[in-house]
């Protein structure tokens, strides 16, 4: 009856082993908090299904199907393969062309050959900022759908500072304009944050509403107060050269300082979230608001703070686009960065490092897709569908686990808690 000695001791019943990993170990543990394998497999599945879609949207597949189904399937494979080759050379550059350009020795030719890589990096910058914005909200348990609107506010503020102040030295003017953009976004995040804190109004509803206000506000500003003189189109004046984010190379390479600002901000967000007491509070409120309240944290203050910071990051995305690339405000300067950023934040597991990596992927896909449309005639929307599928796989890890026969993780994944509709 006493088989205590036979009972296999569970790990937790042993004496506490207090051995500690190195700092590097702790860092990696934080980076790979949840397994990286799911996002990677989700991307692979997304690409595979994207290939199927490319094949299905190819004319030849259907025209040859009646004669020879095998031929048709072969055509499909060929189309998908060619599509992806175009996509990746369009996004990263064609090795043949680069070596040719280097041999020719023409600097302009070299720049054109290596431009795709830089263009991919340029396209990733707004994704980094916007992705950080969404993930900071998620970390605090807030679902900020208003990143797109906050991004427009950031654009408005930064462009206004960009063309209004004249004669400032560049080292003052462009940081000033950039910070004004952050402020504009922060204001647009602060309002739904305050509404949530004071009245419990759900941030999902309120940020969606704030998006529309921002869009319509942009339209009105561009038609009356901020309209460019002598232009019939709704465009703002062009910003001063001193407000532009400095570029590093001659055209056509548009690579600019924004990329390094984005990496710096990502590092800052990481430091803020994981190394400061404020970040600890935000994460605790997000992970378990009841425990946060019990521990004496101010939920209302942290809600407002998180929404404002999230908005500021979104505002930076807008400022970055306009100060770095467009140099003026227009109604359509964002192809929906703020919405794509939701998918991106989830793919990056709401970790700054993950967000940067996902943003690089999204930037690459977007750049390559533009090329794919031009060369192979494959609609750019395929990329949106692919992004959606990657997101679906991320959101439903069970599918990925079934496909790849992965085991259910033992411990609860440190996912992100987002309050539901009626929730607290």
């Amino acid at each position, binding site marked *: *009856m*006493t*088989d*205590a000695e036979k*009972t*296999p001791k*569970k*790990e*937790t*019943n*042993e*004496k*506490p*082993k*207090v*051995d*500690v*990993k190195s700092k590097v170990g*702790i860092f990696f*543990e934080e980076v790979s908090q949840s397994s990286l394998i799911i996002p990677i497999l989700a991307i692979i599945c997304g690409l595979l299904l994207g290939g199927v879609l490319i094949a299905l949207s190819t004319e030849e597949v259907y025209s040859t199907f009646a004669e020879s189904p095998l031929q048709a399937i072969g055509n499909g494979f060929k189309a998908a393969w060619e599509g992806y080759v175009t996509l990746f050379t369009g996004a990263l550059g064609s090795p043949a062309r680069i070596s040719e350009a280097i041999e020719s020795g023409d600097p302009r030719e070299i720049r054109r050959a290596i431009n795709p890589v830089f263009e991919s990096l340029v396209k990733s910058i707004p994704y980094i900022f916007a992705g950080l914005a969404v993930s900071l909200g998620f970390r605090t348990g807030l679902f900020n759908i208003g990143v797109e609107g906050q991004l427009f506010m950031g654009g408005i503020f930064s462009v206004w500072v960009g063309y209004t102040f004249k004669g400032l030295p560049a080292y003052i003017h462009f940081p000033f304009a950039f910070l004004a953009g952050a402020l504009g976004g922060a204001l647009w995040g602060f309002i739904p944050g305050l509404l949530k804190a004071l009245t419990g109004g759900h941030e999902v509803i309120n940020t969606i509403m704030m998006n529309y206000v921002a869009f319509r506000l942009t339209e009105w500003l561009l038609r009356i107060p901020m309209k460019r003189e002598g232009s019939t189109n709704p465009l703002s004046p062009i910003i001063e050269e001193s407000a532009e984010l400095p570029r590093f190379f001659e055209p056509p390479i548009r690579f600019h300082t924004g990329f390094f600002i984005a990496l710096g901000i990502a590092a800052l967000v990481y430091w803020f979230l*994981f*190394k*400061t*007491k*404020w*970040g*600890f509070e935000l994460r*605790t409120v997000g*992970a*378990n608001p*009841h*425990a946060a*309240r*019990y*521990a*004496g*944290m*101010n939920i209302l203050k942290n809600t407002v703070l998180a929404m404002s910071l999230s908005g500021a990051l979104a505002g930076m995305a807008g400022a970055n686009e306009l100060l770095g690339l467009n140099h003026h405000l227009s109604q359509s300067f964002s192809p929906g960065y703020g919405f794509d950023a939701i998918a991106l934040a989830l793919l990056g597991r709401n970790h700054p490092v993950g967000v940067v990596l996902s943003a690089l992927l999204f930037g690459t896909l977007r750049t390559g897709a533009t090329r794919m449309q031009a060369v192979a005639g494959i609609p750019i929307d395929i990329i949106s569908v692919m992004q959606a599928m990657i997101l679906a796989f991320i959101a439903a890890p069970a599918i990925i686990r079934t496909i790849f026969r992965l*085991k*259910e993780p*033992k*411990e*609860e994944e*440190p*996912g992100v808690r987002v309050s539901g509709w009626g929730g607290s």
Partner: protein
Amino acid sequence: MAPILELKSITKRFPGVLANDKISFSLEEGEIHGMLGENGAGKTTLMNILYGLYHPDEGEIYIRGKSVEIESSRDAIRGGIGMVHQHFMLIPVFTVTENVMLGDEPTKFGGILDRESTAARIRDISSTYGLEVDPGAMVSTLPVGVQQRVEIIKLLYREAEILIFDEPTSVLTPQEANQLFRIMRSLAESGKSIIFITHKLREVLEVADRITVIRDGKVIGTTSPEEADKRKLASMMVGRDVVLEVEKTKAKPTDLTMRVQNLKVLDDRNALTVNGVSFEVKAGEILGIAGVQGNGQTELIEALTGLRHPVEGRIELLGTDITRSTPRQITELGSAHIPEDRQRDGLVLTYPVTDNLVLNTYYIKPFTRRAVIQPEAILENSKDLIEAFDIRTPSPLVGLGTLSGGNQQKVIVARELSRPIKLLVAAQPTRGLDVGSIEYIHGRLIEKRDQGVAVVLVSTELDEIMQLSDRIAVMYRGQVLDIVAIEDATKESIGLLMAGIQAEGQET
């Protein structure tokens, strides 16, 4: 004759855990078979296998000597197995009859509900087994004990022969529990077979015919109340000898620490849940607050710790008015709080043990310097506390959610008791814990009392209140009916107060 139910060598594995290890068990017709084990011992897994919610990896189930496969709860019900869950599955706005017929509604004239025939059968069942209940009563108006009877009637209505009671006394007053035991007896006498799952030693000894003890997924042994006593059962459950009675000296109360005057608190639905409560706690004593769950204790605790602001009354801590203070202000005055719902309020399960140990002190030195978190200091702190409070964890950096319930509670206790405190508010500090952890936490509470801390202990376990308290306040429907010194208190007198019956014999 073959036993009515027989399990042979049931094994169930979960990733990394052997939840049931070759469990064999037999239930004779007409017996009450107690199944005793700590939380996590594998009782619930086994019952879920019986009820068709899990499928065993190995082993066989026989009902009346015939091998059966239980694929779903539907199969279980067909096999005559019924379960009284810990949390009732009743619809409060329906009548007893409607709840009983739910899922299997008899109709007449092709679609009209036939309440009368069901009501008639309920009366029939009531009188056969002594389960008094009014079939026409709305469930929401019934006391908890009667609601439980409705659950039992539901099973009998579906002609269950094997009844599983899962921790049935956790929501009952001692008197209601005694009534339940009488009902179980009468059910057994009329041929029903009962599996009674519990971790309370006294209850199995009182009501069971045979007792099977489970530990670490294995059957440790089967015994009977005649052969076993509390001490023996406890050591079977835990695997070592346990001190069941807490040793403590008489309290030496000194200065007044907390004074609560005429406190009125609303709950989430704006109902007056604490209605004029007053008491005082002195340094060096334990004031136990007894009462059946849901009589205002939760809201009272929330008011004392700043989580909920009272609508009327006054709370003083060490002479400071804290009636409308924030949780942090109260904590900083030297108050500690072991919350009732530890996973909801006291811990962040996705955080490592280290962070949970500084959940309310993270912002002060040495854990934060100039707003920057100091991981080394937090780690050092956790190493010290893990050792001092015997928290069983493979590393201070593992997620708290991977620890057992007892060790999770030890994390809270370590965090709260390691600070210099003057007041400790402990709500259900041992709920759901294993005997070993209970023993440990009780010891710590007494130790704090002896160091001159004022302790407010809220518990629905009368045994716990009687063992630890120096004075006992009994809450009933938002009011403190009486505060009695431990010398003058008996289990019966406190039990009656818990049921709302005051010494004069009047019901309030």
